[in-house]
């Protein structure tokens, strides 16, 4: 069960996002985006609060939140790795880099490591195809990847 302080914090973050964007349906996605960015994911309590404040049914908020890739309804690790699995990265050696990633992290696509450090997500094009294979760790982009570089990159993150 979430503690009172946690709910208080969620309440504060949601209210701030709603005030900033306005409590209207068309701002639902920007609001969800902001809250997701601050909390790392969208907990049930946050979705309920957003529904109340924007005056949309809870089912609607959930259906929107679960539709978009950048919104997560599940908690993620401290660092999120997004690995591009689109064709341009694939043909220049993306698959080998992917193998190196799952060997190093010992988790599969869509999983979070037991210590809560890493989440590994496959994603569609990140828009930096000129330097494929590409992955993003949190907000940092790594391009021209080779399997050998993977351990070094992972070590940079505490």
């Amino acid at each position, binding site marked *: 069960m979430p503690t009172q302080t946690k709910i208080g914090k969620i309440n504060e973050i949601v209210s701030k996002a709603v005030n900033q964007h306005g409590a209207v349906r068309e701002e639902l996605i920007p609001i969800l985006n902001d809250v997701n960015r601050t909390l790392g994911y969208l907990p049930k309590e946050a979705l309920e609060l957003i529904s109340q404040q924007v005056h949309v049914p809870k089912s609607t908020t959930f259906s929107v939140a679960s539709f978009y890739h950048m919104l997560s309804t599940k908690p993620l690790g401290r660092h999120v790795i997004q690995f591009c699995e689109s064709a*341009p990265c694939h043909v220049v050696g993306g698959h080998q880099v992917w193998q190196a990633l799952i060997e190093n992290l010992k988790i599969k696509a869509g999983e979070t490591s037991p210590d809560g450090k890493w989440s590994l997500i496959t994603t569609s*094009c990140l828009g930096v195809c000129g330097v494929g294979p590409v992955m993003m760790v949190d907000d940092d982009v790594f391009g021209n990847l080779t399997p050998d570089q993977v351990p070094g990159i992972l070590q940079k993150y505490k």
Partner: protein
Amino acid sequence: MKFVRSMVLISSDPQSVAKGANEVYACLQDEICKRGLESEISVTTVGDIGHHDAIPMVIVYPEAVVYGPVTEKDVPFLVEEHLYKGRIATSLLAPVRELSGRIAWLTSRKGTLPAEHRIVLERVGIIDPTSIEDYFIHDGYQALGKVLNTMTPEEVISMLEKSGLRGRGGAGFPTGTKWRFVSRGQGNQKYVVCNADESEPGTFKDRLVLEGDPHSIVEAMTIAGYAVGASEGYIYIRGEYVLAQERLRKAIQQAKEMGLLGEHVFGSNFSFEIHVHGGAGAYVCGEETALLESIEGKRGEPRPRPPYPTTRGLWGKPTLVNNVETLANIPPILRNGAEWYSKLGTASSPGTKVYTILGNINVTGLIEVPMGITLREVIAIYGKGMRGGSNFKMAQTGGSSGSIIPDSLQDTPMDFDSYAKAGVAFGSGALLICNEDVCAVDLAKVLVNFFRNESCGKCNPCRVGNQRSYEILTNITEGTGKMSDLEDLKNISDNMFQLSNCGLGQTAGSPIRDILKDFRAEVEAHIRLKVCPSGICPMSGVRV
């Protein structure tokens, strides 16, 4: 605007940043301050400059010297030699080419090779994207001024029709005709929407315009608003493009402060507002009706068409939806006239096209060339040949919804009609060049996997069809496919094409259709001989 002795530009597209552009920028500032030159020299980060094999790149004006790739430790030498002593640091110069983009005038142009011709990317990389004054100096807002002061909406639309400009999002619909449909739409409220949800794999052309020349989109949208009678515009930018969103917000604010946006634009009776709307990660939102749903705050599920957005779009009102590249063509056309534009490119597809060239070639990156160039020319001239001297096997156009182009079409002019006649799709401008090390079945599997993940799930043919195709292709790559699978694949792709609601589902089957048509022998080798001729597929004998 401050006057300076020298102007230093640093390429800061994401690829340059990945290679240390930010560090070079910081180091340059330090070195310049150390020598007390900060009042005489400006340092600016710009978007993409082209020349992707020599990034991060530093250009020093007025001499227009191009350095690259520049690392942090080159900076002290560069500052001392060029900016302090005034000598060109020859050892750091970027490799000179016969062909290059905007900086063509400073490198020699020998022979008769067609040079890049930049209209859309004209300013990208030479102006400071956060400065409206820089945009003014490079003909900025002239087209808007001309339109509002000397042209009627009707004249604007007929000029566009005459220019022959066709939508650059992939479908190639005539832009002038679309504008006319919206201008005829009923009701007082209409909208202009810029589709900047660029998410076709391999395509990043719009990103460079948004990040490198954001005012061109603001100007084009305002012109569009005037021409079709809309007072509000939305730019829908994909969520991953955070910098692009910032740049557009800033550009809008600057334009408002100058009276080029908002109430009474240019002192006329025309008023126009633009809102930036960020996406949240969904490929399908690039489909225009899904994009409208998303702006309304809903799941990005495409609507049935007709009615088309030109009659019932955003909140049920007539809406003009144009791609970024299409819009970026508008101000130059209005400045230079329809006749100037229609002379570029081919008769049926005038103008230039921005391509992202990727895959197994020596130089990858972004080029803008007249319509009608052939794939062979692109590979030889701009890609500098196949990597390691390998042989061309196939190319994939237009991101995932494009076609797989076999060897036989390498000399077909790349324009909407020639490609349609050859039975392939021109797409959004990504050219993924593959050599013989790429397996056609594996490539199709990766493409189908993309659609499987990105299908919005609203209608069955696409949701189930992509999942099932992926399973069948996986079996083939594991060596457990059957010949009857090919018949199933064919049926699924036909059904998806005929029965899907939107463009995503309709085109999702094209990789399958293409490999069955052009690479049938290779597919059959996987099934009959249990061999992957390229040696890529695992062929482990597992069946899903």
